[in-house]
């Protein structure tokens, strides 16, 4: 009696349990990969800024606001003053603009929710990429059509290396691009 129960346990129940667990884990791992990498992360921002309106409809250039992109390692989110350049006058009675003006007048910076973040131990350099003619869309997706900005591509090291190693295939229209460095010190100082 006892013997056959343990036997049944070990020969059927145990392998079945292990297999189910592993299958569930693997399935969930791969299905959730994109989400875990942050793809699709579109949080609410303190002020409902629409890139579709500004960058798409009004065709404001990315670099009008994100000024660091050609000069510095960081792309930089614009200072509130940049917004007030236009919004001192433009639509200044709309509720979102009122929120913006309140921040500006109170001299408090706006805490935007960060979307695109590479871990601190990887030192990504925007200007090196932009100055080689890589467009913002290649990594940040079609921002001009996003009402709420979100992460559209994976920012894992595998994704970076994928483009670094096959640069010509990923960016066929770029004439000056070469394969990017894939040694450690390129990013990990």
């Amino acid at each position, binding site marked *: 009696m*006892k013997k056959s129960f343990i036997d049944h346990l070990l020969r059927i129940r145990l392998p079945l349990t292990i297999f189910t667990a592993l299958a569930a884990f693997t399935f969930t791992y791969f299905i959730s990969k994109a989400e875990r990498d942050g793809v699709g992360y579109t949080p609410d921002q303190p002020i409902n800024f629409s890139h579709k309106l500004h960058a798409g409809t009004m065709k404001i250039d990315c670099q009008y606001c994100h000024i660091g992109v050609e000069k510095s390692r960081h792309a930089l989110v614009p200072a509130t003053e940049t917004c007030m350049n236009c919004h001192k006058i433009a639509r200044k009675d709309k509720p979102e603009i009122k929120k913006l003006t309140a921040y500006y007048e109170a001299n408090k910076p706006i805490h935007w929710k960060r979307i695109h973040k590479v871990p601190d131990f990887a030192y990504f350099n925007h200007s090196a990429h932009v100055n080689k003619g890589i467009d913002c869309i290649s990594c940040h997706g079609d921002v001009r059509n996003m009402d709420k900005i979100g992460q559209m591509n994976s920012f894992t090291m595998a994704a970076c290396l994928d483009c670094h190693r096959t640069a010509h295939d990923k960016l066929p229209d770029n004439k000056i691009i070469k394969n990017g460095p894939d040694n450690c010190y390129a990013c990990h100082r």
Partner: protein
Amino acid sequence: MEIENLFNTKKIQRKSFFIYSGVGFLAVYSIKNVFKYFFAGNTIGQNKNNITIKLNPFAVKRDKAGSNNV
């Protein structure tokens, strides 16, 4: 006999299960969101550095590093 007993646990009452797990979830969630402000180096928390850095408006900067070729 002993091994059989191991697998003969009582069924957990469904209602209390959900109530307690819901309460547990809320408890840990709220504590974590409070404790995050106390952990150093946490980028999610608020900036603890209460030192203000201001530039001097009359200082004149140089264009670039300036060559150190002696």
